[in-house]
């Protein structure tokens, strides 16, 4: 520091005192102090540790969940000896069964949408996933209507999601964990211009349900 000695002419006002004091603090100290503040602030907010995403809320059977511009209400999980209206065909000789998830769905978007989505995980109804089963479910109307499932805007419909499971994979009273999809809507550009896209699929909610076994009817067991 080669600060000039205070000239007698200079008045000793508060301002000049502060200025003089500030000029006496060496610059490296300031840099060090700034760095320390930054580190302390980082440490206070949890340091460089990965922030775990907010866990998806849990919904229960019969509770309405909204995600991917759909309202989905899981009404029950059944283990069926007969497929009923489900779209899966179990091999009876291998004693396979059908795991069926009954869901009430309302499309809250303004255009008709297929209940099945492309890609995996799917943003649509077939994005409902049962823990431990990798495949996507097959979807059918619960009332046995034919055809691909198109969700008309605002029209409630009951669907059956189904998977074929082995004879001993699941039993009556077992707990299964389901995840329900959520995603972000965008409108495509260029070659996909005007196409509605739901992507960035995440788990929107989890659901734990008890499997109810529906045995084969008498005449069918023969």
């Amino acid at each position, binding site marked *: 520091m080669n600060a000039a000695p205070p000239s007698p002419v200079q008045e000793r006002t508060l301002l000049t005192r502060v200025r003089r004091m500030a000029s006496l603090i060496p610059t490296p100290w300031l840099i060090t102090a700034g760095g320390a503040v930054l580190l302390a602030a980082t440490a206070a907010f949890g340091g460089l540790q990965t922030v775990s995403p907010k866990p998806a809320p849990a919904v229960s059977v019969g509770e309405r969940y909204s995600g991917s511009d759909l309202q989905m209400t899981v009404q029950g999980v059944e283990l069926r000896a007969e497929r009923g209206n489900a779209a899966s065909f179990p091999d009876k000789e291998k004693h396979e069964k059908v795991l069926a998830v009954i869901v009430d769905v309302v499309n809250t978007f303004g255009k008709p949408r297929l209940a099945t989505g492309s890609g995996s995980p799917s943003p649509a109804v077939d994005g409902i996933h049962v823990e431990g089963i990798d495949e996507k479910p097959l979807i059918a109307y619960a009332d046995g209507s034919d055809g691909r499932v*198109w969700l008309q805007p605002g*029209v409630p419909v009951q669907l059956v999601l189904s998977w074929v499971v082995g004879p001993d994979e699941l039993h009556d009273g077992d707990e299964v964990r389901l995840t329900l999809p959520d995603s972000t809507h965008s409108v495509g550009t260029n070659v996909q211009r*005007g196409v509605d896209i739901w992507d960035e699929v995440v788990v929107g909610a989890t659901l734990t349900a008890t499997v109810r076994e529906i045995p084969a009817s008498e005449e069918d067991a023969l």
Partner: protein
Amino acid sequence: MKKVLPWLLTLVLLAGAWVQNAVALPDGSSEASFLTPATVGHAATARNLTLTVTDVRAARSITDPTGRTLESTWVVVDVDAEAIDSQYGATLGFAELTVGERTFRATERVQSFFRQRLVPGVPRSGAVAFELPADALKGTGTLRLGIPSDARYDGLVELTIDLSDIPVEDAITLPTTHWTHT
């Protein structure tokens, strides 16, 4: 003159830009459908399709030719349709009803004329059905019918229908899609 000219030129260019902006069609117009307006009872033509909507009805329950009955809110559109010059790819593949902000697609839950084949010169008649929410039967609806499943760049027949005008019947039996007898 030398001082005025650049200003004049600027004004002309600005005015030109404004005019161009004002007359430009919205984004995506190049691929918009070619719409043929039509009314109930009158034939309309769109590319490879000649179509007449003969009636628009509404019901709480419909029964298809196979006997399947579905309870909901239905708009049933009776249609006579034929292809014009080619049978190739000719189906009644597009049927949408727009009511307010919502667009509905003809149902595939029952057997109907929707997605059935069309033949050049030989009209077929049948009906397509739309499933709507219970509260949607009001206001005006825009009905669009055509051949392509993807309506971009292709022709569609468009009708405006007054939904609050349609009496709601208890039940409608959908006609079997058959050759039109005239």
